[in-house]
Each structure stands twice: as structure tokens, then as C-alpha cells.
């Protein structure tokens, strides 16, 4: 029963990883850019919520009302002013510029908030749980987190599949020049895609801030978790990303159960195993290569 509990907690944690990964996957899918600042930006959202909570004393989840639009705006502006400028020159410029952004934000957080760990307190929801048997209990917060992840991913999938904007997004992703000829403003599309990516990262950041404590240097590991979920699940598929996140979460939970030090290592090893056995991930979209 302890193992069942471990697996259930791992699955629920996987929802959070899918949220980390969605923005990374979306940006890569649309503009073939790997945003190396993705983890740090997720963390930035948690700090943003922290500031809002400190100033207004509201529940962190209410802070999302501010965090989501701010992150969207940040993504839109960063894309238009900075990242769009790097897209013409091959693989290196976007990687190096986003890496530069990551270093700047990380050290700014360090400077402003010091290296101390912080946490977001969401109140009673963090501790209450549904008891199923005496050995298996599901917390309301992890469950809500998982449901929120599924809703966000489902909503995004619908948005991409069914709306006019989503069609423009897919068109730009498939063939930028052809989309431009159809009067699609690719720079605007890219900026909105980055905005959406960071908005989702904002949700993930606030949730992770409530779930655990966080420090200015945690951006790297958030990026790595997001990346592992994307690669395990397979590129270009949102539901694949969810499954990738779940596999990663379960692997980490089982690792932690075996030995406290194996939490991260177990996740990395599963990722490497997938890389060896199926480098395209478990559920790739047709025609997308890493």
C-alpha cells in the first residue's frame, strides 16, 4: 500500500511537471527555440506571487490574477524586443540570448531576495486530504494541482486546434514564409506564443511555490524537469508532455521512496533510459525531431 501511495503521489506531481514543460514545448513547437530561461522565468512567477502576497496578504492563488497577465506581457515583450531578433542567425543566437536572460534574472533574484528559501502559504488546503484507506490519502492540493494541469493543457489543446489564432499558430509553425504570405504576422504570433508559454509557466511557478520552498538558484532544476518531461513524452504533443511529466513524477517518487538522495537521480535515469530506447520520446507527433 505504501507503494500505491508513492505512485499516486508521483502521478499527481507529474501534473506539475507537465505545467513546467508546456511552455517549453509550445515555444519549441512554434519557433524551434529552446528557451533556456524557462525554468528561471517559472521561478520568477513564484517570486512575483510572493511579493503580491507580502504586499496585500491575499491567498497565493488569488495572486494568479496578477501573475498570469504579467507573465503573458513579459513573454510578449521579451519575444518582440529580444528573441525575435535572434531567429535569423541559426541555432546559437536564441540559445545564448535566452541563457543570458536566465543568468540575469537568476542573479537579480539573488540580489533582491537573497539566497534564503521562501515559501507561499496557501492556508488549510495545503494540509487537508481525502483519506481512502489508512495507508492511502490524497491531498486536496496535489489533486487540485493535477486537475488544474489537465484543464490548462486541455484548454491549450482546444485553443490551438479550434481557434483562428491557433490555426495561424500551427501555420507559422509548419512554414513561416508561407504563413507570412497569408498575411499572418509571424512576429506577433511568436510573441503571443511566448506570452502563453510564460502565462502557463506563471501558473506552474505559483503552484510550485505553494508546494515547496524555493530559492533563487532553483531555476536550473525546474528547466531540467520541464525538459525531461518534454523528451520523455515526445516532442510536439501536449498530452505526451502530460504523460512525460507523470512518468518523471512517478520515477522520482519511487526513487525517493528507495533512498532520499535518489529523488532527482531516479528521474534523470528514466530520462536517459528513454533517450537510449526511444530518442523521439514515447508519444511524439509525426515529423517532429528533437
Amino acid at each position: 500500500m505504501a507503494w500505491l501511495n508513492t505512485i499516486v503521489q508521483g502521478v499527481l506531481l507529474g501534473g506539475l511537471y507537465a505545467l513546467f514543460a508546456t511552455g517549453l514545448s509550445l515555444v519549441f513547437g512554434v519557433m524551434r527555440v529552446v528557451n533556456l530561461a524557462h525554468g528561471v522565468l517559472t521561478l520568477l512567477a513564484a517570486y512575483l506571487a510572493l511579493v503580491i502576497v507580502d504586499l496585500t496578504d491575499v491567498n497565493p492563488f488569488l495572486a494568479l490574477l496578477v501573475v498570469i497577465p504579467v507573465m503573458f506581457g513579459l513573454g510578449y515583450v521579451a519575444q518582440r524586443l529580444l528573441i525575435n531578433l535572434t531567429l535569423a542567425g541559426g541555432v546559437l543566437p536564441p540559445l545564448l540570448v535566452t541563457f543570458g536572460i536566465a543568468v540575469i534574472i537568476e542573479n537579480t533574484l539573488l540580489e533582491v531576495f537573497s539566497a534564503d528559501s521562501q515559501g507561499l502559504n496557501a492556508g488549510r488546503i495545503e494540509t487537508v486530504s481525502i483519506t481512502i484507506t489508512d495507508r492511502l490519502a490524497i491531498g486536496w492540493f496535489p489533486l487540485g494541482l493535477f486537475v488544474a494541469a489537465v484543464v490548462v493543457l486541455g484548454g491549450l489543446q482546444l485553443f490551438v486546434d479550434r481557434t483562428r489564432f491557433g490555426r495561424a499558430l500551427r501555420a507559422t509553425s509548419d512554414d513561416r514564409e508561407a504563413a507570412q504570405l497569408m498575411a499572418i504576422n509571424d512576429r506577433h504570433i511568436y510573441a503571443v506564443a511566448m506570452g502563453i508559454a510564460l502565462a502557463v509557466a506563471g501558473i506552474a511557478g505559483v503552484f510550485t511555490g505553494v508546494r515547496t520552498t524555493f530559492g533563487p538558484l532553483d531555476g536550473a532544476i525546474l528547466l531540467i524537469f520541464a525538459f525531461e518531461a518534454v523528451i520523455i513524452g515526445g516532442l510536439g504533443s501536449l498530452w505526451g508532455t502530460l504523460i512525460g511529466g507523470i512518468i518523471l513524477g512517478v520515477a522520482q517518487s519511487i526513487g525517493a521512496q528507495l533512498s532520499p538522495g535518489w529523488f532527482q537521480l531516479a528521474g534523470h535515469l528514466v530520462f536517459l533510459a528513454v533517450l537510449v530506447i526511444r530518442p523521439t520520446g514515447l508519444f511524439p507527433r509525426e515529423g517532429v525531431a528533437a
Partner: protein
Amino acid sequence: MREDVVIERSTRMSRLTGLAAIVGVLVLAAGPMLWNDGVLRMMLEFFYLLALAQMWNLLAGYAGLVSIGQQAYIGIGAYALFAFTNVLGGNVFLGVLVAGVAAFVLAFPTAALVFRLRGGYFAIGTWVVAEVYRLVLSSQAKLGGGSGATVTVIGIDPTFRLFVTYWISLAIGVGSIVLVFYVLRSRLGLGLRAVRDREGAAATSGVNVRRTKVQVYVIASTVCGLAGGVIYLALLRLQPAATFSVNWTVFMIFAVVIGGLGTITGPIVGTLVYFALQQYLADLGSVYLIILGAVAIVVMLKAPNGLWGLVIDRWSVPFFPIQLRVRRTARRPPPEGSGLVGEG
């Protein structure tokens, strides 16, 4: 009179700088007789940083491989040095060589994994592998566990140790330049630049793309391992978090991007700039890194060939004769039948 052209590799300038470089290296080698301990420590840090920057440039600037996991080999080198010296009781200076060998050996399986990924995902993949090495090595109680370990140098005269460390570091720093120079002039270097500029075209011209990239990756990683060995021969105290810190690679990226990607002189300039700024701005701590990050972004956007690229654009001064150059001359071509290539 009709103008003729000659195709040449070395120029007067590059021959002169070659001569000056040899004299310069001889002077540096005499460093322990010339400078005090503080200067020597500073110089030896400069040399190993230079080697790291050269190797990252070989990867990114010539092979188009962005790795943010080169700290893996610094860590492997450091732990190899420690294991060889403390666990096996070997000579600590020989340990630097062992560090290089360890990095060389581990670079192959690592390459087999990370080369399944491309571009940005390759970058994060190398980082994950570095984390795996950190987690595995820091869980070994014999290697100090999570709190780290100290390389034992009891019985070695500190001044003697400093001198030898200085010379090893000098050899790695200068050696890295010579190595990149000869790699680029070799068949491997030609294939490498072909792959970077257009992979498909290189492949159809008979370049084995994957093997070329793996060879470069192994070379760069081995030198990073050697550098890791000499770094911890100087520092002695190794902690998993600092030894495997991504900040090593952050330095490499900034030095190469600011100095100039894809040239040999660029990383030298970048390391000098980094070093000079560090002397003045190190007290600022994280503000220093914020400034460096901003400078790197501006350079990447406004001058993608770096500071050295700006110099090259204005005055064509190739220090290192790698590419073939066309120069106009007023000289007549040799008369026919004078023993040109293809005759006899």
C-alpha cells in the same frame, strides 16, 4: 600591368605573431622566477580559464554544439584527481593526467547519449548528464559524499607545488590554443567547419557528420577534464555543488561570446575581458554576473562575432593562419614549365 593573385595561408603578420608567441610563452614559463606567489596564482587561473574557453569555442564556434554541461568534465577531473591521490595514493601532479584520461574515457558513453538530441535539447541534455555525474559521485562515501573532500598534499613543499601547478596550467592553456589550431588545420577541422556551415552539404561531400562531432566533443571534454584536474590541484578543496557548478560553463559561454565565437583569438580576448572585469567587479558578486549577462546579450545581438570580430572587420589581422587567403600581387606568375604542381 595585369594583377595576379597568390593564395596563402600565413601572412607576414601571422608569422611575426607566431614568433612573438614563442617568446611570450618562454617568458611565461619563466614566471616563477619573475613574479610573486599572488601573481602566479592569478596567472594560473587565467591559463585554465583560457583552456576552458578555447574548448567551448571549439564545440560551439566550430562544431555548432552548444553544451551547458561541460562542468561534468571539470567535476570528473576533480574527482579523478582526488581518487588517484587520496584513495590510490598516487602522485598528485600525475593525477592531472589521470583526470584527463577519466574525462576522455567517460566522454564516449556521454556522447552516445547526448548526441541523440539536437540543438537546444542537446544543450539541456548535457546539463542533465552533468547533474547525473554530480549526484552519483557525491553519493560515494569514499569520495567524501555530499560534503566533498580535500586533496591531500602533505609532504609537498607549497612553493614547489605552486610552481608545478603553474607550469601544468600554462601547458594546458597554451596547449589548448595549439590544439585548436592544429585541429582546425587538419582534415577534422575542415569537415568540422563544413558541418557547422551546412550539415547536409557536408554529409553529401563525404564528411562523416556524427563522427566529426563526437571527435570534437571528446577532445573538448578531455581538455576540460585536464583543466578540472589542475583547478583542484590549485584549490584542493572539492565540493560537489561547486565542482559541478554550471557557472563554469557560464564563464565559458560569456568569454567566448564576448570575445568572439568561431575564432581562436576571440576566447583569448574574452578570457582577458572576463578576467579584467573580475578584478574590478568581483566585489559586486551577483551584479557582476548580471552585467556580464547583459553584455553577452548585447554582443550577441549587435556584434555576433564578438569584440575580436569587430577588430577583424576593421583591420584584417589574422593572428592564426587557418584559412586560405587571397592576396593581390603585381608579380607575374612563374614561366611555364618551371616545376609547378602537377608536373613531374
